[in-house]
């Protein structure tokens, strides 16, 4: 194992290796048919786990979504539903 002085990590982006989706126990789901693509969920997601696909739709990357549900709270037209995580 490599121990750099000062615990400095000289490999950028290594956080990606740590998939935090497993922490989730409630799962937000976007109803794309009703979504107006305002992007507020994307702004508020503290993990950067919401992204825009090629069609311009907002999607959640469940590899990193921790299930904080801020997106569902902030969605102005309430089209992000909260479902139980299947474990």
């Amino acid at each position, binding site marked *: *194992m490599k*121990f*750099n*002085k*000062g*615990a*400095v*990590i*000289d490999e*950028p982006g*290594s*956080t990606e290796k740590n998939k935090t989706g497993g922490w989730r126990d409630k799962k937000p789901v976007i109803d794309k048919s009703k979504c107006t693509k305002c992007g507020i969920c994307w702004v508020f997601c503290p993990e950067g786990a919401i992204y825009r696909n090629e069609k311009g739709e907002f999607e959640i990357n469940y590899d990193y979504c921790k299930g904080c549900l801020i997106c569902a709270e902030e969605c102005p037209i309430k089209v992000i539903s909260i479902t139980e995580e299947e474990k």
Partner: protein
Amino acid sequence: MKTLISGNEACAIGAKLCRPKVIPVYPITPSTHTAEKISELIANGELDAEMIKVESEHSALSACIGAQVCGVRTFTVTASQGLALMHEVLFNASGLRLPIVMGVANRALSAPINIWGDQSDALAERDSSWLQFYCESAQEILDTVIQAYKISENHDVLLPSMVCFDGFTLSHVSEPVDVPEQSEVDEFLGDYIPYYKFDIENPKTIGALAFPDTFMEFKKQQEDAMRKAKETIKIVNKEFSKKFGRSYGDGLIDAYNMEDAEKCLIALGSLCSTAKVVVDNLREKVGIVRVRSFRPFPSNELRDICSGVKAIAVIDRAFSYGHAGVLYNEVKSALYDLKERPKISNFVIGLGGRDVRKEDIEFSIKNADKNEIFWVNTKE
């Protein structure tokens, strides 16, 4: 150039000669004049640096960390409550292995509120993994600031340094100081070569989380660095002597009259200067060992120099309540391994700015063999 300046001014000029680029400061008595002098040097164009007026000492040291990771030398100065407010940031600076240098004009901690000198503030930060040097004169403050950068920046060390000097007794006393030429200090210190820094071409994560499976290894590295610092301090002290003609003992301890001493006095800081006058006037064979580097602690050096001594008086200007004087604890534990252990007594003197008088030092020497803890010159 020889000039007459105060300890605070000596600290500021010492820092200036090392060319720090960022100096975040929150002023606090008795260190304020250091900050004032630095701002004057910047205003006069003698020092090319950014002085940041921060909103607290916590921010001051945080700003030092931020600047230092960008690859420049930094400096700050504080005392007492200011240092206490920095407490958590101290551990960040050392854990990130940043060679920050900080002046500390030692002062008591509240309550009761007290602005005068003792060493409770810096000694309370004993375990923060900072190097701690205690000075005896204004000259030594200036010289130690320069040495501290050289020691801290050594890639085998990479730990921050506190240059401690007694509040008022040194900070506010003006005396002759030999100020070295800028070019000489430039030659001695060289450019700052960061071990790591923020760099767009080579991105890094600084300040990451360490899980239980790695944390201890990083902490062990800090202890290894402390041990290496001992040798580095000695080497830098010798190099400094060669360049500037001044040195302070072996860098770790400064011994006086110890050749055939039967008794000895061990202490930190400026009171050792007054103690020399006392010892010179005594008929007994009494020596003085001034602990210059409190961290790393010179255990081996103390064992060597104290073997053969029959009684030791350790003077403390800080107390670990519920146990004993801070330096006394350290000295006792260092000397435990001696085959013939001397008697050691502890003398608590000069808390909260009470004057350390010659009588108090005489009393300590006289009672060194009592094996007791004395609070000297206190009222009933």
